[in-house]
């Protein structure tokens, strides 16, 4: 087992990234709490970041990590605004259940 683990390759990191991404996707589709839904999207960002850094290391090019910085930036901005909106929505319906917003008409 130690030998198996002694040759960590790009594939390992990609598997981890894929698994994290899929778990994030499943969480997004499954949870009803709006905040947790957004948290799962953050998880998906995370997975993408891992993949990108792995590739950057694999090809010895720093641009991948630079891009991860930008991902971080965008994630932060998006989180801020999303949370603000969630709070507004919570005030309207007094619940965080995403199914409260399922009427297909203006409310």
């Amino acid at each position, binding site marked *: 087992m130690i030998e*198996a683990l002694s*040759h960590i*390759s790009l594939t390992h990191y990609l598997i981890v990234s894929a698994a994290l991404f*899929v778990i994030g996707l499943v969480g997004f589709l*499954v949870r009803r709490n709006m905040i947790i839904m957004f948290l799962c999207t*953050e998880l998906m960002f995370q997975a993408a970041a891992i993949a990108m850094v792995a590739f*950057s290391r694999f090809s010895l090019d720093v641009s991948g990590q*630079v891009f991860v910085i930008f991902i971080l930036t965008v994630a932060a901005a998006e*989180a801020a605004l999303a*949370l603000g909106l969630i709070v507004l929505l919570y005030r309207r319906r007094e619940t965080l259940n995403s199914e409260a917003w399922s009427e297909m008409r203006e409310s």
Partner: protein
Amino acid sequence: MDPKLLYFACVLGAAAVYLALRPGKRGVRIAGSLLGLGVIAWMLLATPQLLSVMGGKPALAEGAARPGLMFAAFSLIAIAAAVRMITHDRPVYSALYFVLVVLSSAGLFLLLQAEFMAFALVIVYAGAILITYMFVIMLAQQAPSTDHTVGEAEYDVNPREPGIACGVGFILLAVLSNMAYGGVPQLKTADVPAAQRQAWQAMNLMSRDVEEMVADLMPGAKPAAGATIESAPGGAFITVRREGEAFDTRLPLPPEKLPSNVQQVGLDLVAKFPVSLELAGVILLMAMFGAVVLARKQIELGEDEIREAAGMRKLGFHAEESAEARASAPGGAR
């Protein structure tokens, strides 16, 4: 071993997550979690054989560290924390598990020799974003009432269509892992010497760091006037002049003195992607504006006031009043 076992592993993983999601007995959930962990561990362990069978070839660049156990630990913790995050009843705990995920992936970054990213991740994500999430979670919790004690809300406990979601997700995982193992044949292993050359080239832009490095290597030496680091097949060197000497010496630069990750990232950020940097700043500015706007006190406008503000007539059952209003304000801006 061939793809079919991979797919079978994905199916098992799906089942595992599904079991973990059901709001049932604790034993079931734990069993599911353990099963999932086992699957991932197997996938990671079986990677070499899978690679050889499915034709992938990528290995990390030569000279990289081979941190076997550390990698296993970090990755398993990350995945376990992620699963716990999506299955936990309480939102606060989900956020906390996410913090754990972030820390684990920071560890992975460290293993990948991306120190700056690791710390940036911890500072920005765990330190800022997740704290914001926690505040909002606590803000949006329902107050406890007589018939509703503090506990999990119904919408937190019951997942929504776990079966389909797991199925869809793990189909994707199967495909992704297929690609990862099957590999892209054109993916060429990086050329280490060329990368090193580029790195030395980049260092040239940082003259003060170069002076420091030279002073560090050879005390009392300074780079010769107009000298830059040059890379040659044998290594890199720089022409320096020692104090008290009248001639230049070639100073070979060892690989340990390559610019660090922070320096490289910083250089790239400013030298190669300045516009993106500025745009990132703009994005953050916009986010700040948006947050301020959203956080304003909302006044509940009545329907009539909204229509008035929009310059439209009032509704029908107010016709008498509006007729009077119009009669009294004939030259209105309508």
